Structure formats: C-alpha cells, structure tokens
C-alpha cells in the first residue's frame, strides 16, 4: 500500500470531506474481505521484516542502529496510517472506535518519552563539550605540561560526575572545582542542579512509569474483537506493541529521569514479528545486566565508549608524575586519539538523530490529529 501523503484530502477541506464521509459509511463497495486480509497480512509481514533486519545488521544499541529502529517505526506507522485511512468507515464503529482511540491516547505517552530523550541527547552534548576541553588541553603541539593536565583532569572529573546515573548523584555531592568555597546560597540547589543541565520535565515525571503506562492494558486482542473488527484489531495491537518497544529502547539507551527498564514486555509467538522483536528485547535486557553497564546512565554504545575512554584517560593522568616520561607522553597522545575518535562519530551523528526523534514526535501527533479529524 503506497504511503501517499493524505494531507490534502484528509479532513482538511471539511465540506467535501464530510459529504464523502456520509457516503462512505456503508462498507466500501470495492474492498472485499479477501483484499483486506491481504492488506493486514502484508502489514504483519512488513513489521516482521523490519525487525528481522534490525536483528541481523548493525551494532545493537549504537546511535546508528537506534536511528534505523526509528526509521522502521516510521515505516510501520505509515502503513498503519494507510490501513486506518482505507477502512475509516469501520473505525467509527465498535469495537474499532474504542481500540483506536485507546491507541491514540497511548501514543500521547510516547510523545513525552520523545521529549525526555531530547534532554538525554542534550546531556550527551554537554559531555562532548567536556571531552572537547580534555582534547584541546592535551592535543597540543607542545609537550603536555602540568597545567594542561590539571585542566584535562578537571574536565574529566566533571565528565565522570555528569555521567553518573541519577541515583548515584547523592553519593557524589562534592565540590566540582578545586579549593572553591561553596556559595552560601547553594543549599537552595537540589540534586538536579548538581548536573550541569536540569531536566525539562517536572521532578515527579518518571521514564519508567511512563513505560509502564504504555505497557498497561496492552493485551493481545480478544477473539471476538478481532472478528467484530474484521481483523483490524490486530494491526492496532501490533502498532501499540511496536510503539512500546521503540520507546523502551530509547529509554534504555539515553539518560533520562528515573530511567527504569522494568516493563512487562511480551508478545505471543503467534504473531509473525514476535520472534524478532522479542529477540531484540532479550538481547537488550542482557546488555543491561552486564556488570560494566549495570549502573550506567544509558545503554547507548557510544556512551559506554565515552565512559571507558574517559575513565582510562583519568587513570592515566592520575598515574603521571612530573617530569613526564616519554612513554607516558606517547600513551597520552594515544588516549587522546581514542577520545577524538569516539567523539567525532558522535558529533556528526547526534544532530540528525535528534531530528529523527523530533520527526517521530511530529508523525505521532499528526497521525492522532488525523484520526480526531476523521471522527464523525
């Protein structure tokens, strides 16, 4: 089903559209149940294909891979949108009207996750700035002096603190710069201000609760619903599951407030796409349990690399005594190279990725708006 842009015909020229609606309330003459079945099957297959592909290619949880995941989501979303449009006469009757409006109410929760992820991306940008300072301090043509090391060290300490998982900031409340007396009014600052950025959400917002809300009542469609809706209940369930999964991955990968991954995500095997999605899910859960990633602030591969290379650099700097041996000097240069490598890739990828997240946001909104427009 070609995903054409329906903007021009869909609910905008309300007079003509409304009159169309009245006519199309009777089951559309051309769509036999056979072609509808084919359409719905094709959707299931497409979802399965996308997720099989995600299993097979790319580095799991890298920025690029997650970008691919978002692309897949957008494709599935377009297909879904087409299906909803093609059968809009059915959408306004029971049980579809209930199922669809539930889906779109659910999708609002996803919008908040998208916004929270933007915060997470901004956090990463802040770390990049600190890394830039480290790199510029050490990446000089001259030999590295004590002052430069000191500067690099300070930035690395800031970076380490900035990358602490939120739960651990209570342990790390200490002066950020050497020898500076704490300002008298700093006691007004709460933990949130200790990070260089505060979240754009209220203190009570929780990514983990948001995911749980997305997952709540996400049940496989009841048989009588499937029959009564001519099978349309299935794509709704599919889309809702895909939405949940994508949001779950985003929360898993990026720093956000109250980032918990405890969500009951299970898709029964009867669905074509269940196997590839569950496989990805299991791989990611495994990743989250790994010793070295257990308390990280985000499972994004690049975050792990920043963490590692900055930690190594930090240790190296701590081990340096002046005058610096030539060995150490070489090592420093090597570590700087590594740091540069890690950041170059991220620097180029982060902006387009953020745009993609924003695109997901806009499409979800648009899809919902179209649906509201079409309800007569």
């Amino acid at each position, binding site marked *: 089903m070609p995903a054409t842009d329906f903007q021009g015909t869909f609910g905008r020229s309300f*007079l003509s559209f409304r009159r169309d609606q009245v006519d199309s309330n009777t089951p559309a003459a051309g769509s036999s149940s056979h072609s509808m079945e084919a359409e719905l099957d094709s959707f299931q297959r497409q979802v399965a294909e996308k997720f099989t592909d995600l299993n097979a290619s790319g580095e799991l949880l890298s920025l690029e891979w997650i970008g691919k995941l978002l692309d897949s989501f957008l494709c599935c979303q377009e297909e879904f949108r087409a299906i909803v449009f093609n059968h809009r006469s059915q959408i306004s009757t029971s049980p579809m009207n209930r199922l669809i409006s539930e889906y779109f109410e659910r999708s*609002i929760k996803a919008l908040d996750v998208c916004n929270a992820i933007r915060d997470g991306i901004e956090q990463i940008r802040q770390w990049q700035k600190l890394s830039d300072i480290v790199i510029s301090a050490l990446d000089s043509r*001259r030999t590295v*002096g004590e*002052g430069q090391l*000191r*500067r690099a060290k300070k930035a690395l300490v800031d970076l380490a603190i900035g990358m602490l998982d939120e739960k651990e900031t209570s342990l790390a409340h200490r002066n950020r710069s050497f020898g500076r007396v704490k300002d008298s*009014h700093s006691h007004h600052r709460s933990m949130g201000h200790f990070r260089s950025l505060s979240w754009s959400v209220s203190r009570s917002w929780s990514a983990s609760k948001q995911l749980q809300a997305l997952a709540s009542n996400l049940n496989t469609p009841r048989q009588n619903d499937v029959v009564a809706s001519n099978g349309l209940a299935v794509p709704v369930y599919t889309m809702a599951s895909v939405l949940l999964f994508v949001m779950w991955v985003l929360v898993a990968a990026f720093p956000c407030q109250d980032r918990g991954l405890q969500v009951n995500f299970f898709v029964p095997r009867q669905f074509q796409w269940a196997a590839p999605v569950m496989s990805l899910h299991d791989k990611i859960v495994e990743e989250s349990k790994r010793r070295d990633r257990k308390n990280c602030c985000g499972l994004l591969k690049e975050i792990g690399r920043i963490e590692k290379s900055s930690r190594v650099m930090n240790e190296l700097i701590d081990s340096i005594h002046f005058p610096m041996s030539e060995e150490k000097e070489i090592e420093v240069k090597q570590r700087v190279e590594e740091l540069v490598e890690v950041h170059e890739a991220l620097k180029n990828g982060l902006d387009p990725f953020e745009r993609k997240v924003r695109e997901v946001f806009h499409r979800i909104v648009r899809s919902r708006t179209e649906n*509201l427009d079409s309800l007569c």
Partner: protein
Amino acid sequence: MAENGEEKLLAVARHIAKTLGHNESMADDILQIFSTFDGRFSREKLSEGQPGEDGSTVSALERALNSLDSQISRFVAADQPIWSDPADSAAFLDAIDELVNITREWSHLANEKPVGACLARADEMLQQAMFRVEEEFRSLMERGAESFAVSNHRLDSDEDEEEVEGDDDYDGDQIPVAKPLTDYDLIIDALPSATINDLHEMAKRMLAAGFGKSCSHVYSACRREFLEESLSRLGLKKLSIEEVHKMTWQELEDEIERWIKSANVALRILFPSERRLCDRVFFGFSSAADLSFMEVCRGSAVQILNFADAVAIGSRSPERLFKVLDVFETMRDLMGEFESVFSDQFCLVLKNEAVTIWKRLGEAVRGIFMELENLIRRDPAKAAVPGGGLHPITRYVMNYLRAACRSRQTLEQVFEESNGVPSKDSTLLTVQMSWIMELLESNLEVKSKVYKDPALCYLFLMNNGRYIVQKVKDGDLGLLLGEDWIRKHNAKVRQYHSSYQRSAWNKMLGLLKVDNTAAGMNGLGKTMKEKLKQFNVQFDETCKVHSTWVVFDEQLREELRISLARLLLPAYGNFIGRFQNLGDLGKGKNADKYIKYGVEDIEACINELFKGSTTARK
C-alpha cells in the same frame, strides 16, 4: 659600557613598541617613529635586537619570564578573589597579556632547545593563570547573578508599589534594580556594567589562550540556571504533555495565564537581555557569543514551547476555544521576537519549532470547531423541548458562536492557514460558520419531527429559527454570514409561521366559510349550526393546547397573535353575522344559543396563546 647602555635603550624601545603596538604592524609603526626620532633607533639596530642565537637575548627572555612568573604565581596563589580589587585584576591581566606577547614573539624559535624550554614554561604559566581566570570568571558570574536575583523578583509582581525587602542588605554597590513590570519595553541590565566589563576582559584572554570552551561552558551553565530560576519564579511549571492532557479545565486555564505572562517576559525581556549580555561578554568573538547564547536559552525556550505544544495536542472540547486562541495569539504576537532573538545559526531549530507549534495551535482551533460539529450532529433527536420552545443546543451553539466571533480576526487567520479552498466571496471562516449553522438546523429539523403535532413541529422550528437569526443579526457573526443569509433565514422563519398557521388553523378557517350554495335556507341553517359546533370544539381544543406552547420572543408572539387575529376575526365575525341573520333556525330557537364566543372572546383567547404552561415556560 655605552654599548650595554645602548642595548638597554634599544631593548626598552622594543619593549615599548611591543606593549603599545596591539599588532605587528602597529609595533612596526612605533619602531618607525622611533627610528625617525633618533639616529640610534635605526630600523636595523632595532630589528637587530630580535631574538637570535645570542645567549644573552634568551636570558632576557628567561628574565622576563621569571618576573612574570613571580607576578602570576602570586596572583594564582591568592586566597582572595583577584577581581575584588580593580588594581589587582588589571595587573593580573597585564601580566597575562605580557606573557602572551612574549610567547608570540619567540614562538618562531621554538625549535631551539633553550627557547623551547622557556616557551614550555611560559605555557605552563599561562595554563595556571587561565585556570585562575576561569575560577574568577565563574565566581564573578555567580555573584553578579545572585545580587540580581533579589531585584529580579519584581518581575513576578504586577503591583507598581511593591518594595524590595532587604535590598539594602547587599553590598552598597550600585546594582541596578529592575523596575516593576508595567510594560515590556524594559531593558534589564542582567549584570552590573562593571562586572560585564570585567567578564569581557577575562573572556578575551581565555578565548585567545585556547580556553574558550571552558569559558563558554562556565558562562552558559551559570546563566542557564539563572534563566530557569527566573522562569520558575514566574510560575512556569515543567509539565509533560500527558500532565497537561489530564488537567482539569480550571487548572489548565490558570496554567495558560501563567504561561502567557512567562512567554512574554521571556521573549521580550529575558532572552534579549541574555543576548545583549552574551554580545558584551564575548564581544569580538561572535561565534562564541552565538553558541553561548543558544546554550543559555535553549532549555527555557524548549520549556515554553513544550507547553504551547501540549495545549495544541490536548483535547478539543469546545469550551477550550478561547484559551487555545489566547495561546495561539500569544505565539503569533511573539513570532517576531522568536525571529529576532533566535536569528543565529545555532538557534534556527528553535525558531522552526516555534513556527511548527504555532501552526499546530491553529490546527487545534480548527479541531475544536470540528468537535463542535460532532457535538451538534450527535445531539440526540428524542430530547425535544416540551411546548416547542428554545432548545438548549440552539442557545449553546448560538452564544458560543457569538462569543467566538469576537475573536474574528484571529479566527480568520486560523482558517486561512488551513489547506481548504475558499470560494470567491467568502472566507474560510465564513464557510465554517455556515456549515455549523447548517448542521444545527438539520439537527433541529430532526428534533422537530419528534412532535406528533405538525403545528408544534413548525412552532419549534420557528422559535429556534428566530433565536438563531436574532443572535446572528447584530454582531460579527452577522457580518461573516452576510445579509443574504440573514434575509434567507428570516424568510424561513416566516415560512414556518405560515406553515404553522395553515396546519393548525386552516381547518377551522374552512369551517367559517359561508357557503352560499347551500341547498335552501333550511339546509344552510343546519349546516352552519353544525359547523359552528365543530368550530367551537376545535377552537377550544386548539386554544387549550396552544396556550401551553411557548413562543419565547415577545415580538414573534405578538406577530403570531396578530396574524391569527387577522385571519380568524373577520371570518368569524362574518360567519356569526350571517348566522344570526338567518332568522328562523327552528321553532323559536335563538341563534345566540349556539354562539359560544363573541368576536372579542375569540380575540381574548388568541391573546392567551403561546404563554406556555408553568412547566413548559422557557
């Protein structure tokens, strides 16, 4: 000896040239002036003194560095803030400048070991110095923001007279206090002018020494915090889309009020003020200024936009129209500010977001009208009003539209943004309004069919139709729909009127026709007697029923009565007259026996019509 003295003189001359000359060519000019001044200051001699392989000049470098080292180390080790004393800070900066100059001067000989060692040492000193400068920079920024925070609270209040408590407790520095907010043409000096100058001097050195990123980082962190605190003091909350979605309408209205105020203050005062500050602190380094500004304002701008977005995405319940329009109008009015404040390369994304969200608010308004259409369509048919009076939905819709049309200009704008195609003579808003009227009227027609009595059906339509026209006539809605529409609908009401009359009274009227072709005088009398009897019954019945019906509009009621009177009274009078003149109606029977009502009585009954029973009265 003399040579040594001359050496010294030349060295001094060179030194003067280097310190006074802010760049190479200026230094050159100064040397040129010297050379014309005194023969000893020939260009060759002066340039001879350039750092060379001569060990003595390297030692001059070392001496210079030693001197600078002791100065700089003293400052770096100081406990007190260097910038608390203007003489100290000036001396510190001078030493740094000197260090930078020397480094620049000798850098081309960095390959030579002794020079290289000195330069490394110089770099080390520079690092130490910059470290300290960064600290001083941070503490100066924080101190400055602190004192402003107190006077800042005036932004919260709308009162002109509110005094700042404890203002005098702060150090007697002349700190500009923000005046009470009466209009937005206010320029706030975010920090005291002297502080800004100091910060600029520091930033200049840091950026030149490659410490620009740290400088920008410190600057942005401090100002961002200040900005966020200012906004939260204005009452702007951090709300998720879902939280906004779930709010009660009253809560949301309050939140929107606060948002409107915060958005205006942010876009018209706070952001421009931050821009000015960036430009002053990072004067001469526009890229650093742009970047820092974006860092400072991004979070707050996103917060403001997120709320507007949440309102746009929220429910489309028709009661929300006016507040959503408020948000739309605020965004529209602030677009200019968004354009000018976020005009640089880094802020393009923010500006585009603002436009997107503004458009989405327009969509939301259109969505609200669609919801209104749904409401009308879905209003149940069976709930008809007893007595045929004004239906609640008519009242609701008409008053709603009248109120909406007060924001006519904004609504025109909202509808023009959509992709619809207007016809030649009417705007899209007109089309929308006409459509709603059509829907309402269809709904009313369906409702009218619930009445079993067709007369009541027409009365109902007449009542509601009249109300509609009244509400349209005087106001923006009438201007939108046009004279033609009003004329047509008045005609409709008149049509309902005649239909009512016909269906309820024609039969009776028929009875009153004097038939001259009756088969003989005896027959006529008998027929007339019959007819009169029937008339009386029907008239009684009708009056009884129709007096419980309602016509809310006084003028319309009068029109109906007058019209009926004009219809009935002459015919009745005529009939009665003829009847009475018939004479012989049987053995001694009097015509009067059969005449229940006189003409005046008929009139009186008519005047009792449409008053409504006590329960049906509207």
